[in-house]
């Protein structure tokens, strides 16, 4: 039992970072119908903004906020200048995915050109060990888990209690109907890209705090798990993303502990496959069903 709880604890840390990023990823799909493969690069960009601030003397926590802000602006810029024009001209989902892939590669290698292939890290202490109910965390990891919980709660509040959130939900289900009802789709889309971009920057910073290293490929290495979490939970659904992150984060660590560490990533995709076999649209399928994804 004690080993199980230990592994669950490690899984919660991974799940927290996944949760923040998967919510952002799935929001973008929900509103814009765009499978944004540049999300990982945006995470990295946000992490680098935080690094610049931190390496110039700012404490890590306000640096994270700056990183989130930087990624938010970058996401909005990309959405307005690249994705929106393409969406106006191109209807094929595959073509749009390739566009996002191209954007991601351009971003990634632009960052390499600026910062080189070297690794950098934040100026911060790892944090003391904290034992909680049989699990072991560092104080920094507990804060990351707290941030993920706060983001989840804030997202729930936004979607349920605010006009913008309700507009987001409406657009995600049926954009045309939402527009006909007087919702400003363009403005809500901009808000969504700002919000999801901020989440990507925040997740990027949290990821670097966890793995200790930042380089131009940090976010992209994490992207496949983000996609898995978002799809498992039901693409387009923030609640699904939260659930998907938790399932993937915890199951992969438990599998690594009881079976073999080599199966860590494999387990995540086996779980994904099994869920999709039973529910092709993911666990929380409302948005995916409305968009007729995975029919």
């Amino acid at each position: 039992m004690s080993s199980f709880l230990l592994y669950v604890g490690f899984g919660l840390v991974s799940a927290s970072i996944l949760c923040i990023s998967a919510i952002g990823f799935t929001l973008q799909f929900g509103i814009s119908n765009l499978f944004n493969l540049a999300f990982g690069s945006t995470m990295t960009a946000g992490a680098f903004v935080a690094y610049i601030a931190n390496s110039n003397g700012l404490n890590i926590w306000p640096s994270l906020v700056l990183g989130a802000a930087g990624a938010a602006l970058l996401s909005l810029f990309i959405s307005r200048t690249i994705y929106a024009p393409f969406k106006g001209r191109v209807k094929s989902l595959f073509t749009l995915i390739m566009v996002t892939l191209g954007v991601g590669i351009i971003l990634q290698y632009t960052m390499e050109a600026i910062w080189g292939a070297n690794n950098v890290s934040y100026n911060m202490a790892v944090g003391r060990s904290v034992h909680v109910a049989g699990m072991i965390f560092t104080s920094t990891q507990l804060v990351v888990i707290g941030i993920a919980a706060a983001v989840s709660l804030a997202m729930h509040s936004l979607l349920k209690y605010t006009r913008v959130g309700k507009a987001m939900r409406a657009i995600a289900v049926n954009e045309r109907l939402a527009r006909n009802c007087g919702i400003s789709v363009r403005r809500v889309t901009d808000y969504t890209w700002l919000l999801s971009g901020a989440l990507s920057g925040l997740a990027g910073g949290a990821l670097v705090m966890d793995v200790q290293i930042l380089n131009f490929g940090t976010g992209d290495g994490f992207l496949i798990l983000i996609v898995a979490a978002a799809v498992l939970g039901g693409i387009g659904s923030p609640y699904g993303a939260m659930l998907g992150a938790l399932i993937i984060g915890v199951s992969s660590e438990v599998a690594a502990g009881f079976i073999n560490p080599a199966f860590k990533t494999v387990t995540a995709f086996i779980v994904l496959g099994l869920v999709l076999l039973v529910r092709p649209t993911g666990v929380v399928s409302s948005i995916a069903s409305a968009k007729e994804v995975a029919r």
Partner: protein
Amino acid sequence: MSAVSGAEAHPKRSRGRPSASPRARLARLAATGLVGALLAGCGSTAHGDTGGGSNGGSPKGVLTIAMVAAFSGPDSIDGIAEAAGCYPAARLINQAGGVMGHKIQCTAVDTRGDPADAIPAVEKLLATTPGLVAVIGPESGTANALIPIVTKAHIPLITNDGLANTDHSTNPYYWRNYPADDVGGVALALWAHKMGLDNGALFFDNSVNAQGSVPALLATYQRLGGHVVANLAVAPDGTSYGTEISKLLAAHPQVVFTETDPQTDATAFANLMTLGKPVPIYGTNATVIPQWLKAVAKVLGPTNMATYYRGVEPYAPPDGATRVFNKALLASSSQVPQPSQWLGQEYATAPYDAAVIFSLAMDSAHSTSPSVLNSHILKVTAPGTGKTIVTTYAQGVAALKAGKSIQYVGADGPTVFNRWHNSTGEFEVVQYLPNGQLKIVGLISAAQLAHAQGG
């Protein structure tokens, strides 16, 4: 196209111009052909001879040594290290007058660490570089794909790949001045046994590069009486290795052997510090690079790093040749970013020595033909009675001009190729001090390595 058909195709051009006589057209054609032939001849001379035979003609073209490695992507440390070796070498060679008056240039060929990218890049190099004389590289991930292509073109290469399958290479154009990964694994096992650490755990990532050391490490360690209490091959760049580390600690190892990229080990050892206190960590030569050392020192703390970490890497004697290399490296800051991080580092001194060896071989052969210089590589590196030991290119050229036979002993120490063109040398054990410097705390001789390998 004949002038007649030209006139028919472009009737406007023919208006108002008298048509040329057949004799005049023939003369123009002949003149064009002659000019073209002259230009072709001048071009091949200017870029140096790559087809064979000596090149004593002028003008003196540039000779190219290609650095074939990953210069972008996750393995880009390989390319940066090669640049840190080749550029200082080229600087010193050119300062000494070049190779028979030819300047040496180092050209980067980016493999991105992937054969799919590497093969077209190298094929383009071979097709479009007329002054190409030699290759430094490639790295382990692309070696099996690229070595046949390069050597088929009769271009010699000196590589630092770690593949065990080239330990007994019969390819005449293949040379390796850096020990294979399996030799590094033997050295790790020897040092752990010497320190009395006979319960060991392995924490390696599952890449080809990292796993190259594992079989020899396991075999030697167990042959010396060691017990392997855990053997973990992990996927790199994960968000957490807490599970793996907790399993490893549960096995109570006295030492952890490791080779992963900086991010993976930094994450893992941060988890180690969370779960308990550190244990001795013995890393392969892949850990004795600035990026890994800084990343892991940050999570362990400088004192723990100095206490618990030891790196095992090929021995580079800190003597005059290394000082010359270091000075040239620092002077190459416009080409090598942050050069000070490579001072005396094996990953950089090996390609440095490779470039110097190629150049001295050309001087010895009085030829810039790759196939001819290849046959002189042993002549300038092998020990022998009556040979003059030289430690720099300038010394070597002066001795050769004086009619002496030479043995080049460079920044990496003696490069003694065995019959399979492999030079393994000795190994050093280093400690990473809190001030960021490396200190040699032990040596493992070539004889000890050979004996441990059963040779």
